[in-house]
């Protein structure tokens, strides 16, 4: 605000002339950042009960993160020398990344297979993917012992036999790819038509590159656990783990898009184009069909893999019964989708989408946290502080998402670039 005061005299002189630089900047900030409102009114719109609640949790989470960086990981996590990874990675990396496949799944459908029907949701899918990876890195930075060395696998020392090395490279590369894939929306928001044209021209290459990277690191995230055969429970441990992870990531991405498309149509109605809102039902039916197919494939491979490893004998145990909860939930999903599509029940498909999200979270939690180290007598899953940090970071992610959707052309085309397919 001081800038405005300092320029007051200058403004007097140029009263009738062209707008001064500060006025241009002021108008730009007002239009782009404050949603066209004066600062005071914009700030007023932010004070809602929900925002205040979110603010408190985020503050508490940030305090805990600060403590972690002063006193070490033991201040906030239950991580031990037997169970070195906890909620941060189980949530942010092993569960968060599968859902972030949305960018590559919908991107491939629209830009490579030319399925124009899904064009309205493609930018949203890419944005969700980008944020998912970005926040996976945020969680990784909190969890790494020496996060300031996060670039070491890329530039300093190469552990080429490590699956983690592959994951590090791919997440870094794919984060950049997703940023570039989303950049046309950012550039439209900034009215940079020329640069945007260049960004748009890269779409096909980026999409194919994205498929290559996604295939490998989605599967690699589970392949990391191939190295711990005595610690992963036999009902989850199988040499098919990488491929199960890849297929279920596609299922996760489709479910996320089914649910988020519905949520945006309710909560961001004013930001969505009429075309977007009209196509929700048809898109949901299409995604439901695809989900049904993908989850049938997953179920088949999963059952074959358990038989292949001879692990059915473990059903008769408490972990075996817990496994039944997961597998039964995952098994009914493709049937529910199929029924929903046949009867054109959009609501049922959206409900099944929610169930799928729960099912795939359950699967990743079981693999990496809940049944991990199943042979140890005493296991601590996580500390409440860890959960609070996770909730805080998720709230930040949602706020960032909201900030972007409120400003950039995500759910509607930018008026200057209507119908160019990006």
């Amino acid at each position: 605000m001081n800038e405005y005061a300092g320029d007051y005299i200058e403004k007097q002189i140029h009263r009738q002339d062209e707008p001064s630089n500060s006025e241009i900047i002021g108008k730009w900030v007002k239009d782009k950042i404050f949603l066209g409102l004066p600062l005071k009114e914009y700030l007023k719109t932010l004070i809602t009960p929900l925002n205040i609640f979110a603010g408190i949790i985020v503050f508490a989470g940030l305090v805990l993160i600060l403590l972690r960086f002063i006193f070490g990981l033991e201040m906030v996590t239950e991580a031990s020398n037997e169970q070195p990874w906890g909620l941060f990675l189980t949530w942010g990396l092993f569960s968060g990344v599968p859902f972030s496949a949305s960018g590559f799944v919908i991107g491939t459908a629209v830009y490579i297979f030319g399925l124009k029907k899904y064009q309205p949701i493609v930018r949203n899918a890419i944005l969700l993917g980008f944020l998912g990876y970005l926040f996976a890195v945020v969680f990784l930075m909190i969890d790494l012992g020496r996060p300031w060395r996060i670039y070491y696998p890329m530039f300093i020392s190469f552990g080429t036999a490590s699956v983690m090395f592959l994951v590090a490279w791919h997440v870094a590369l794919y984060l950049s790819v997703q940023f570039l894939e989303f950049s046309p929306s950012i550039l439209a928001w900034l009215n940079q038509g020329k640069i945007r044209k260049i960004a748009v021209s890269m779409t096909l290459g980026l999409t194919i590159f994205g498929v290559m990277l996604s295939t490998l690191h989605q599967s690699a995230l589970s392949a990391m656990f191939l190295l711990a055969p005595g610690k992963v429970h036999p009902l989850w441990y199988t040499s098919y783990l990488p491929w199960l992870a890849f297929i279920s990531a596609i299922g996760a991405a489709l479910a996320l898009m089914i649910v988020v498309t519905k949520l945006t149509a309710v909560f961001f109605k004013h930001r969505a184009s009429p075309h977007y809102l009209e196509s929700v039902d048809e898109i949901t039916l299409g995604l439901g069909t695809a989900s049904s197919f993908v989850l049938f494939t997953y179920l088949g491979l999963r059952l074959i893999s358990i038989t292949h490893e001879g692990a059915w004998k473990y059903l008769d145990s408490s972990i075996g019964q817990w496994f039944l909860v997961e597998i039964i939930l995952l098994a009914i999903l493709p049937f529910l989708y199929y029924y929903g599509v046949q009867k054109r029940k959009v609501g049922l498909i959206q409900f099944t989408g929610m169930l799928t999200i729960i099912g795939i979270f359950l699967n990743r939690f079981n693999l990496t946290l809940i049944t991990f180290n199943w042979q140890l007598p005493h296991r601590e899953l996580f500390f409440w502080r860890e959960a609070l940090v996770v909730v805080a970071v998720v709230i930040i992610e949602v706020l960032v998402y909201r900030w972007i959707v409120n400003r950039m052309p995500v759910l509607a085309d930018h008026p200057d670039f209507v119908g160019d397919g990006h």
Partner: protein
Amino acid sequence: MISRRDFLKVGGSIVAWSIVGSEHAVAAEDFTGNPDRVGMLTDTTRCIGCRRCEAACNKANKLPEAKTSFEDTTVFEEKRKPYVADVQSYTAVNRYEGEDGKPVYRKLQCMHCDEPACVSACPVAAMKKSKEGPVVWDEKLCIGCRYCITACPFYVPAFEYSSAFEPKIQKCFMCHQRIKDGLIPACAEACPVEAITFGKRKDLIKAAKQRIWGEPDKYIDHVYGEEEAGGTGWMYISGVPFEKLGFPENVGITSYPKLTKDFLSMVNLTLVSWPALLGGFYLASHQKPHAEHKEESVKEEHK
């Protein structure tokens, strides 16, 4: 929309990248190893549970002062793990009940596998199998991801969860520096009953078998570590079954890096086949009739 020429350019560079970029996908190689690598042999029939190896380890590695004296035998009431934060040493001796109720002691520490899971897990090659034999760790490279801890089937590496600025991976390094200086590891030196023998791994296997052949009634006919987890640098012989001494029974004899090798070998295939398949599909489905294509490019030029 993208013209075909643009597409070929982009596609070409992706293929080029995938060939160059696939360098990082080299899978773990089969272990050849230094035939003269050193190892250790623990004879649990000789160990008297004096804990002098723990004390010597603490001193040699300049670890934090012990919370209770190293002569305190009440620690045997628990089954301890060789975690510095708990035992102030890279090694811990535990007491088990043998046949006819006599106590049997077993010393725990890093097994120094020939093909270690932790080494293949490390994304920055901070964990290494040294040519001398010990599995060592380079603090200058470690990023603190703790995949080595997840991977180790013996639950050995520990992490300094209490340190925010330089958290270390803590485990036995078989006194690597002492070995390079021509000394023997501190624990072997301190042992009053020669329960810990240091030497070339191939010689230790012979010595272990000689002891078993010499007194077949005293020993179980097995050298633990000769084949376990693909072979370990630290081996054990015992008078009671190994599972009774808390040795993990599920490590198998396959070397751990092999478990992810198949997956890593898929990397190149995927990098090459996706661009070909998807690019081919895109070209096939988006190709326009020739005449129309020409007309369009003429139009574009006039713009």
